[in-house]
């Protein structure tokens, strides 16, 4: 009898977080450099819950860009560096769904070393950590704006994180949440896809922008700054949509007070 492969990823089981346990922040490279306010908000959100955070200084990148481009040998070097950096932490929290998916789902493909796989599995996406691990939905934020959510495809489909961002936004005071049409559709970013097939990427982005406009939202939030870099870039490129802002969800969750 052959052994059949498991055809769907097992649903994630979160370990229990003991109060006071330190959490290592993994701030993806582009967030660190281009969206530091999202990183700051992440640290702030955890601090308000009395979760002590550490920022391991050796950290660089999760290896995803090279991995998705097929250069697994190069990605492996970066993945190993990641594992050396984070080896001592039981909890690793990351404010990006796609980088979290890289660590949790794809590390094993790049490097089947059990240590690598195990460290990769410790990485938890921020909204997932708040809702599923800490059991928090109300972060005490106030954000009196009309907001729509774009969940990145890796967050939605590789991690299966769908409810946490919605629950968190739902508890924000004075927020008006609107769902955009075809909310599950990809925005067309896709990393290097955006510059390898720019025509198609932009065509997909235009559809997403239309959905955002149709929702009437003033602000688009996402647990993925990478999608927002593309969506925001498109919004700002066109004078008619320049007024629509993009924000990482963490920024909304610390707003007000």
């Amino acid at each position: 009898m052959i052994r059949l492969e498991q055809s769907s990823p097992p649903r994630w089981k979160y370990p229990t977080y003991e109060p006071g346990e330190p959490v290592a922040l993994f701030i993806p490279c582009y967030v660190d450099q281009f969206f530091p306010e999202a990183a700051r908000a992440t640290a702030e959100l955890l601090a308000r819950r009395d979760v002590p955070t550490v920022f391991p200084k050796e950290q660089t990148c999760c290896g995803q860009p090279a991995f998705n481009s097929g250069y697994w040998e190069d990605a492996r070097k970066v993945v190993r560096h990641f594992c050396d950096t984070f080896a001592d932490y039981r909890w690793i929290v990351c404010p990006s769904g796609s980088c979290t998916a890289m660590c949790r789902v794809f590390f094993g493909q790049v490097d089947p070393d059990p240590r690598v796989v195990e460290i990769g599995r410790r990485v938890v996406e921020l909204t997932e950590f708040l809702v599923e691990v800490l059991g928090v939905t109300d972060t005490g934020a106030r954000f009196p704006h009309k907001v729509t959510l774009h969940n990145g495809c890796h967050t939605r489909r590789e991690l299966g994180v769908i409810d946490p961002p919605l629950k968190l936004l739902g508890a924000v005071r004075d927020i008006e949440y609107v769902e955009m049409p075809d909310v599950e559709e990809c925005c067309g970013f896709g990393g290097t896809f955006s510059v390898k097939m720019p025509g198609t990427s932009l065509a997909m982005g235009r559809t997403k922008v239309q959905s955002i406009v149709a929702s009437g939202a003033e602000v688009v939030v996402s647990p993925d700054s990478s999608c927002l870099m593309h969506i925001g870039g498109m919004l700002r490129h066109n004078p008619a949509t320049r007024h629509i802002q993009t924000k990482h969800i963490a920024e909304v969750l610390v707003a007000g007070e």
Partner: protein
Amino acid sequence: MSTEEHDLQGAPFLKEQIAGLYEPAGSKATGEAAERSTKHNREVTEAIPYWQDWREAASQIKQYAVANLDKLLVEFEEKITARGATVLWAEDAEEANRHVLAIAREHGVKTVVKGKSMVTEEMELNHKLAEAGIRAVETDLGEYIVQLAEQRPTHIVTPALHLSAKEVGELFAEKLGEPFSAEHEHLTKLARKHLRQEFLNADMGTSGTNFAIADTGTLAIVENEGNVGLSTSTPPIHVALIGVEKVLPRIDYLPLFLNMLARVGTGQKLTSYTHLIHGATPGRKLYVILLDNGRTNVLRDKAARRALCCIRCGMCLNVCPVYRRVGGWAYGWVYPGPIGSIISPHLIGMDKAGSLPFASTLCGACSDVCPVKIDIPHQLVHLRHRAVNEPSPARSLGDRLTWKLWAWAMGGPRRYRAAMGLVKLGVRLARFLPWHPGKLGAWTRGRALPQVPRGKSFRAEKRSSDET
């Protein structure tokens, strides 16, 4: 289409990468029709509360079948041969064509009516038959339209998805000399009128096969138009073509697959007709051609095996945001969309189809709906890894060096800071350039560059706060 032409046809994705085609080549009709069927088919599957369990069962059964192809195919052959069918094996398209031509020659065939079959597209059978002076007529309405238009199918289930009713009406007026109409029912009637005569005159009928059932030796074929029934039973000879992965271990599993295929393929609860062919009827000939054509290459690549579970329902095409915009021809070969991107590299070679796995954002909409749960995005990244390491259009020395350099830069915080400093400087300076080259230009064609934050990076802040 010759093998050389595959190269050209395989190029569009790559071409965009180089020349930067501004607008995607797919027709508006493609996107709209694909979106419509997605919504419709979703409803029909969501009506089944245990749909996810069905998917799991179907996936496990197909994985079992793929892992036991050798035994199951032989079992199928024995069973159906015992009831008068002749089974022929073909290692590649050429051998399959030789078989079909030999059968045609032996029986003096002049006209062939064809039921829909993607395998015959792989073989370019129509072309081969024409070369031998034999007329082949497609009898599936969509295929018939595409054949009249001298085009290739853009979709594996609905071949003429890219054409509007108006375009079909114009085509019929031009090629069949009928008065113009853009009304679906009328157009169908016209096709029916013209095809009826073809069925009666044909010397041979061909068909694809949806499932080849091993334990009973049965061909299961589904259709909606009745043309497969006529193609397989009116002429004295029926040639069924089957990709070797189409085998199902037991007939008990068939109801599950028939039900699922109809729901995801065409949004029906069951197709209008289901044919179960158990052998040759007295006085008629049944030939069954089992075609490999690169499928065993998939078996050899362990990480890719699940690609063989595909039942060609076409749902992954319908949901794919890339397919919807670029259309079927952009994929350069018989199988478009996500499934094409994961099997064409195996079937026609990485050297020809190596750019296909890159034609995706890895969004995973396809694997979300695939009835046999093929992990398509994971297969895509696996094939990307192969494509950059094997002779293929995706292999590039420039990229190789870039990623080497990148991996070095990401090897430690100092190098990282230096590299990121350069990137930020580049983005700042780019604002003052009148023209952006290469990848930068590809980005700024329709997107503003990210704003470089005025303050420090997060890590720089952390550093200074630790130092104080």
